[in-house]
């Protein structure tokens, strides 16, 4: 597969011995790729390497077959939305959006179009600090999109918004990006955000790429324990417990089971219900097995009682 944006063994070696990469990724035209990882995993460094703010110590980046590894940020034509937006405080909204546009008769029309795209038509003369956080985020997006970049990069685009606003903005963001059809990479540490926004997700940990794939692929077929536990809730079983749930035949005997893939039954892994967390439609039951290992079962709210002796079986397991 040869993608529109090709990242080949790109690598950054920091002075204190921390290394990010080598990472290789192919991203198709119009695809949204999420870089998901815990803080300090190197995902922001990856984004900055792509933008050209950091120089790579190895590897190359190509867009539509053109090698841009050594192209300075100003000539790279990659749009970027910064975590804190980095709107110019001394310019108004229109001047911010028009910053990357050449002076031409239709500049005003382009600014208006970019603002209309993010649903802020007529906001040209507003001061940046008069806007709410969500509006600032949209101005930042309009500014990045206005010069019609080849690739859009977003650094934790929703982390500055309050949770209530985040979910709505997430959908609007995806809609705008898909309408423009731009190839997009964004960084996040939230699994839900990555699932919701990304076509594919690249999981990064300690500077290395762990797995790339569609959300359900990562969830159902994680390649290792890190991906299994970082993406979604997961119970990890080893040894006797793993065998009781029907695993242990292949791999190194480690079994990962999602809470919703466990259920109470007449036989299987025995344990005692220690906690019950009611979430409305269902409840999480924390069960302690005979080796005092705890795990979670998602079931009907009245499936079991506190202190009850239960047996648990798995409907689907991931063997690692």
């Amino acid at each position, binding site marked *: 597969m040869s993608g529109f944006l090709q990242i080949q063994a790109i690598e950054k070696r920091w002075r204190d011995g921390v290394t990010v990469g080598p990472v290789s990724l192919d991203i198709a035209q119009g695809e949204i790729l999420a870089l998901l990882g815990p803080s300090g995993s190197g995902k922001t460094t990856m984004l900055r390497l792509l933008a050209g703010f950091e120089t790579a110590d190895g590897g190359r980046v190509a867009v539509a077959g053109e090698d841009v590894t050594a192209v300075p940020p*100003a000539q790279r034509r990659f749009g970027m939305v910064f975590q804190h937006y980095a709107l110019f405080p001394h310019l108004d909204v229109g001047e911010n959006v028009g*910053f990357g546009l050449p002076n031409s008769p239709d500049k005003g029309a382009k600014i208006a179009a970019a603002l209309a795209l993010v649903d802020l038509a007529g906001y040209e003369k507003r001061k940046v600090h008069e806007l709410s956080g969500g509006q600032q985020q949209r101005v930042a997006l309009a500014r990045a999109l206005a010069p019609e970049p080849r690739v859009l990069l977003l650094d934790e685009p929703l982390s500055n918004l309050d949770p209530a606003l985040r979910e709505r903005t997430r959908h609007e963001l995806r809609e705008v990006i898909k309408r423009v059809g731009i190839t997009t990479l964004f960084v996040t540490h939230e699994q839900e955000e990555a699932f919701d926004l990304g076509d594919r997700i690249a999981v990064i940990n300690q500077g290395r790429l762990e797995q790339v794939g569609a959300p359900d692929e990562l969830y159902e077929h994680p390649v290792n324990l890190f991906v299994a536990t970082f993406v979604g809730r997961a119970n990890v079983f080893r040894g006797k417990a793993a065998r009781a749930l029907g695993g242990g035949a292949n791999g190194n005997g480690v079994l990962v089971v999602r809470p919703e893939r466990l259920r109470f039954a007449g036989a299987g892994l025995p344990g005692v219900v220690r906690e019950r967390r009611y979430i409305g439609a269902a409840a999480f039951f924390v069960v302690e097995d005979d080796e005092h290992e705890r795990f979670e079962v998602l079931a009907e709210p009245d499936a079991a009682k506190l202190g009850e002796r239960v047996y648990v079986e798995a409907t689907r397991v991931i063997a690692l």
Partner: protein
Amino acid sequence: MLLLAWLVIYPIVIVGAEAAHPTALRDFLTRPGEWAALWASVWISLVSVILAAAIGIPLAFLFEWFDFPGRKTLGALIALPVVLPPLVGVIAFLFLYGESGFVARAIQALLHLQNAPWRLQGAAAILLVHAYSMYVYFYLFTRAGLAKLDVSMLEAAQALGADRRATLWRVIVPLLRPSLVGAAMLTFMTALGSFSAPYIFGGGFRVMTTQIVATKLNGDLPLAMVETVALALVAVAGLVILRRTEGDDILVALGKGIAPRPRPIQRAGVRRLATIAGWALAVLLLLPHLTLILVSLVPYGAWTTEILPPVINLDNYRRLFSEPERLRPMWNSLWMASVSTAVAVALALAGGWLVVRRRVALRRAIEALLALPWALPGTVFAIALAITFSVDAPLQLRFVLVGTAVILPLAYLVRALPLTGRGILAAYRQLDPSLEEAAASLGAGRWRTLTRVTLPQLRPGLAAGASLAFVAGLGDIVASIVLYTYETRPVSIEILSSLRLAETGVAAAFGVVLMLVSAVVLGVGARR
């Protein structure tokens, strides 16, 4: 970088080296007058700090925490002494409280006295001027510190059971300490380097700055150098001691809360009292300015023994602007201050860029170079430049500049560097690096990023630093009196010679012009 070192460090080194002159050293050590002057400098400075603090800190609390009629207007008026260049402030005091000033005349007429009731001379007069002009530092620093205080911290202290006094001493004062120490340092250094007040009012009472200039004018250069080094050492010692009490200023940066809102004074009587006291204070603060304006309107020889002047017209201003010989110093001061400010801004920009953008090993050195002229009294640099640039030795990078038109702007430049440097360095530090990255990602090249993003962000700090530097150059007397020539004489020198000729009106008119220009420039510089 090298230019900075050549301008700032090199002259000091030369003076230090040449001061090691055995006879001059012996002279200095054995003459009691020298020790007396040094001691006078130190105690005058310390008392100035105490007086300025005693006036400035309570005022700051009053204006920051309490609300009463006229609070806003008065709060702005109270910083007025800043627009008076040192020499102009001193002559205003002379006209107001001097032995033939208004107040003395009024009392003399009232009580039918034969002679003036007092003579404005000696240490008390110097301290009076210092207290008037330097309390502003404490006032502004304390207000800034109070404005940064997080109200939730005060509430936390109260919730933990601290009463008002405990809150003041255990929370507010420790948090204000960096501001207070900063003000104390500034006051101490200004008082130590103060020249105009001791020069005009000192009489037989000598402090080190006047002593140095007197020695230099007597032609005893080696001794002047030893005195210069002694004064510099005192200044450095003072700074080191104060620095030690400063502590970490990280303390303040912790919370990003809201400052307490000014509380209205509830009791009507107290409020009326506060209002009256406030306005009385404003009048007291404004009197020197008003006096200066009045005196500038009195033509030469028209005012002898009356309490109020019998004639008032614009004669002095007409002479000022029509006689080329009087217009000249005005132009001199303006162009020299402009050039030195422009160069100081350029150097500070370059230095700031090096310090913040490039993590060069020399950054501490650059910061120190930009700040050093602030830490040493102006007289020290004036003498150092006079010595260094009166010898023709190109191989040692020494040229004869004394007596040319270059030396005064150069001296102003050295004095201006800390002012522009501090403003611009602070602005650079606050600059969000992602703004420049955002510009780059939008296709802006280096030049466009600099002019459209970086410089506009730096503008407030730049304007503040530049306006302070310009006003300092405009009103300078310390360097001027050592280095001027007749051709390049600045306004301050012209004021002194007018005073010597008893042309008080002309001197006052010059003072008013300086005051107005300073006020306009500072006003523009402070605008956001």
